[in-house]
């Protein structure tokens, strides 16, 4: 990583950690000046960009995030059984506009089931879900048409909202670019790699500008860069007031979310713990 790459990574890290834009610009400019005048490897001078960004945050703090808006998703008392096996018991989650909620838990604890119930794709045995506004859903896999091009997927989703073909294609390509993918090619979905196919899946779910976005481990097959872009995009969507629920088993990302719902059966389900179990303070 050369000095330019290091500075770019630092900028992204400061943005993710919600350092005020002016302060972040100032920090990056100062570091650039120091490197230009003093020379040397930034990794030796400042250390890893993530670590340096962490030190900056400790020193100058972060800009206050936008205040959460009205409730967009309220799932109350969700209970689901498959035969005699109880998968979900009385799970409850409330997400406001501008918040990210993570649904975590062991394999088979009902994370995907909970999300499908929230999306209205499956009925619970008990409980109800209230959604304000438009709903977007990205499944763990599938959800695309093997023999269609990416552009055709965008047109298909766009037509559902009454969006004309040209604007739907442009919006899809722009959203895909946020994930570092140029989607305009002549490649059918079945020929895309697993990760790229998931980018298509994710792009489709954000295309209708949903007020509530439900994501079921959408990053399967993503490389490191795309994974970072993914969380950046979630931050951007949160900042524009989208309420996001993401099923994840990667606990190292919980500092980026506002609410954590742990569905592991050993614990009481349905708790809501911002800032305690890794939720963003």
């Amino acid at each position, binding site marked *: 990583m050369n000095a330019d790459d290091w500075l770019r990574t630092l900028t992204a890290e400061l943005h993710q950690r919600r350092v005020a834009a002016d302060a972040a610009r100032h920090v990056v400019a100062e570091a650039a000046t120091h490197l230009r005048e003093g020379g040397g490897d930034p990794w030796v001078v400042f250390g890893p960009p993530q670590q340096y960004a962490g030190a900056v945050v400790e020193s100058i703090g972060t800009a206050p995030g936008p205040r959460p808006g*009205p409730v967009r998703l309220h799932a109350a008392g969700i209970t689901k059984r498959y035969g005699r096996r109880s998968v979900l018991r009385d799970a409850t989650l409330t997400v406001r506009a501008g918040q990210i909620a993570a649904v975590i838990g062991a394999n088979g604890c009902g994370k995907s089931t909970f999300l499908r*119930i929230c*999306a*209205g*794709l*499956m*009925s*619970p045995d008990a*409980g*109800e*879900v*209230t*959604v*304000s*506004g*438009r*709903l*977007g*859903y990205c*499944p763990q896999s*599938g*959800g*695309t*048409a*093997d*023999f*269609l091009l990416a552009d*055709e997927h965008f*047109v*298909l*989703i766009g*037509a*559902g*909202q*009454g969006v004309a073909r040209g604007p739907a294609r442009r919006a899809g390509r722009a959203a895909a670019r946020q994930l570092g993918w140029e989607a305009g090619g002549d490649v*059918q979905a079945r020929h895309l790699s697993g990760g790229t196919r998931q980018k298509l899946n994710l792009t*489709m*779910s954000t*295309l*209708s500008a949903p*007020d509530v976005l439900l994501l079921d481990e959408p990053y399967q097959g993503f490389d490191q860069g795309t994974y970072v872009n993914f969380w950046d995009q979630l931050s951007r969507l949160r900042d524009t007031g989208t309420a996001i629920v993401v099923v994840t088993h990667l606990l190292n990302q919980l500092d980026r979310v506002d609410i954590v719902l742990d569905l592991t059966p050993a614990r009481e389900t349905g708790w809501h713990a911002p800032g305690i179990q890794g939720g963003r303070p």
Partner: protein
Amino acid sequence: MNRLVTVAEMTLRELLRRRGVLLLLLLMPLTFYLIRRDAYLGQSVRSLLLGVGWAVSTAALFATTAARELEPRLRLAGYRPHHLYLGRMLGLWTVGLVISVPFFLLPMIDGADLRYGGLAAAMLCSVAVAAPFGMLIGALLPRELEGTLLLLTVVTVQMLIDPAGSGARLTPFWSSREIATWTVDNTDHGYLSRGLLHGLVVTALLAVGVAAVASVRLRRRRHLRHLPVG
């Protein structure tokens, strides 16, 4: 209307890109025709019509199974169930008509002495019934293999059953067989009208069946309440 046309168009695009499957589907009616070519012409034409019905049903089955995971998210994206099943049916009927053209011309090129108006009507009936028939099987059976086996069973029964027996009327492609008899054997108009009526009723019943299954599967669940953005 735009949603309906978009779903129809995407169904068409998907099917036309399955070139290998399409080729095999086209091979079946041709084989059915040629295998009976040296025998009685009537059997040859009836087999051809059954082959077209089988080909379109199978295409419909594949299209429906492939769309199973996509449809719920299209529903969330603003489509109503009728946009999805009617659009798909429209696309499949279009594919069926395109597939039918060479098979309509085949007996003509072969120099068969037929009522060609009747052949066209029988083809139309075959295609009209086949699309919702394949879709219904695809909607009820989630896996392609199970659906294909069921289709095979129905086509075999259709082929072997005595067409004059009362049970034959319960088979989906009886209409095209009846019209084919009028077409080839110059029988009375009763065959034509019975066939057309049967084709119409069966197509309508199958379409209602598809609508019912799709409406249940893609229904708005009672536990989910939508509020406008406040």
